């Protein structure tokens, strides 16, 4: 398979579009946690119950379509080889938690991969809906419509006072986690981000690097999401998140401008050095790759680098993860082998761009 073909098949179609404010916001996501009323939550349910839920989803929703989302396919985790499972995790279509409980876990995935429903994760149902760029309201509207569609056939665990009942007390109420993935290199460079994170936390929102709290943000990508799910309506939660994200966008743009004005040459140098590393190295670890990709993406946004689409950051951040590298190689690879393949895949990818421009 050619690299172009591999990329086309590897990257979710929705991800290749640029949404609003896509110089800074990579994607918007709404996740809704739901449960069946009569069945214990997956943590305590027996095998039979969980299998019933899987069969129900297969029968009622497999090969169905909703709105613009054509043909959902139910993928059972226990039928997938482990590399394939990792690939689904790296595409953010399923969580690592679902993969670890592969006996009863499944995912209902729409053809364009914009909607995925995890079945038998921590909750029976977790609806995830992605939009490119900054489109939280639209995501909320469609997630809610999709939720209505499922609810026609499912008696949800719901209580008038507590709302949607979930396995974890942190999700009860709306069951909703709204999140936005942001590329904030200038706020990191100017160290403003360190001052902003505690302030954002105080507003009931969480900021984390894409690979979790405690680890530094890979590729200067941060996920901002709501922490509170009880006592506030879905619309209010999204409104609050939206206003914080808007401020972050503004601050990031200002910081970029300031850096360009004050130390344009140094910035340009940093960007092109990273571009040099990506297009020439023979061994590259994921951490360095992420850092360089962030620089190149910034270079594209600022107009220093042309002829490379800005979706390349999203694309290569995903493509160069272990699962994808091994799928590309069609075999298991040691960490050292992965670092070599990662370098060569990135080089190839950049060459591809220059060839077609």
């Amino acid at each position: 398979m050619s690299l172009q073909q591999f990329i086309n098949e590897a990257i979710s179609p929705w991800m290749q579009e640029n949404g609003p404010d896509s110089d800074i916001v990579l994607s918007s996501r709404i996740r809704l946690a739901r449960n069946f009323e009569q069945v214990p939550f997956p943590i305590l349910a027996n095998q039979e119950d969980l299998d019933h839920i899987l069969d129900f989803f297969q029968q009622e929703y497999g090969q169905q379509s909703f709105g613009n989302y054509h043909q959902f396919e139910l993928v059972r985790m226990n039928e997938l080889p482990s590399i394939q499972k990792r690939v689904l995790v790296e595409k953010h279509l399923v969580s690592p938690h679902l993969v670890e409980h592969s006996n009863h876990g499944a995912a209902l995935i729409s053809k364009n991969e914009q909607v995925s429903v995890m079945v038998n994760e921590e909750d029976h149902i977790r609806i995830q809906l992605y939009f490119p760029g900054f489109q939280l309201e639209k995501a909320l509207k469609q997630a809610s419509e999709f939720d209505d569609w499922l609810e026609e056939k499912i008696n949800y665990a719901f209580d008038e006072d507590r709302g949607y009942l979930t396995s974890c007390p942190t999700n009860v109420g709306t069951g909703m986690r709204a999140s936005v993935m942001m590329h904030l290199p200038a706020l990191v460079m100017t160290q403003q981000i360190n001052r902003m994170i505690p302030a954002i936390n105080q507003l009931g929102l969480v900021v984390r690097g894409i690979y979790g709290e405690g680890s530094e943000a890979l590729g200067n990508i941060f996920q901002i999401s709501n922490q509170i799910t009880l006592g506030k309506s879905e619309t209010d939660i999204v409104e609050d998140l939206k206003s914080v994200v808007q401020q972050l966008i503004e601050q990031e743009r200002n910081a970029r401008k300031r850096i360009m004005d004050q130390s344009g040459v140094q910035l340009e140098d940093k960007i092109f050095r990273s571009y040099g590393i990506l297009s020439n190295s023979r061994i590259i670890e994921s951490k360095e790759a992420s850092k360089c990709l962030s620089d190149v993406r910034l270079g594209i946004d600022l107009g220093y680098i042309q002829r490379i689409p800005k979706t390349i950051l999203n694309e290569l951040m995903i493509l160069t993860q272990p699962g994808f590298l091994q799928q590309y190689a069609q075999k298991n690879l040691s960490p050292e082998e992965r670092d070599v393949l990662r370098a060569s895949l990135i080089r190839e990818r950049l060459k591809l761009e220059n060839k077609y421009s």
Partner: protein
Amino acid sequence: MECQECHQRPATLHFTQVINGHKKEVHVCEKCAYEQGYMPQNSESFSLPNLLSGLFNFDSYPVSQSQDQTSSYEAPPKLQCEKCGLTYDEFTRIGKFGCAKCYKTFGEKLNPIFRRVHSGNSVHDGKVPKRMGGDIHVRKQIEEQRQKLNHLIRSEEFEEAAKVRDQIRMLEKQMKSEQGDGDQ
């Protein structure tokens, strides 16, 4: 301690994972944590239970104390969900509910927990499922209208208040007839 994945680098990250109620210790280096998916983008499953069980343990002190006292309104000494079998003690340890019924079983005890996790809130104020929500929607509307009515009376806007009062009556009638349908 060496990393349990690569057995090469020192383990710099230590997690406690709770899977199906079983605790598992994870000691890995930063590279493996990332590459083996120990640090997923949704890291809630790692950090929050730890944080929560901290909250609950703190919370369980007065609970165990109250078991010694005989007070008529206290819950029975061992609070256990009849549907899934989860006890309150287990719940505070793993930080997860076992089923929808648990919410009723543990009842009011949950208020302080919810308030701490959700910035002081313990009551839902969002979406209501369409199919089951008919009655709830009307009741919520009545509640809102009553508040409006009180406000109008206090500000002596009686003409407007009369209109709102009529609306409340209409909603109440609507609810009664819906309940009537349900009984048949």
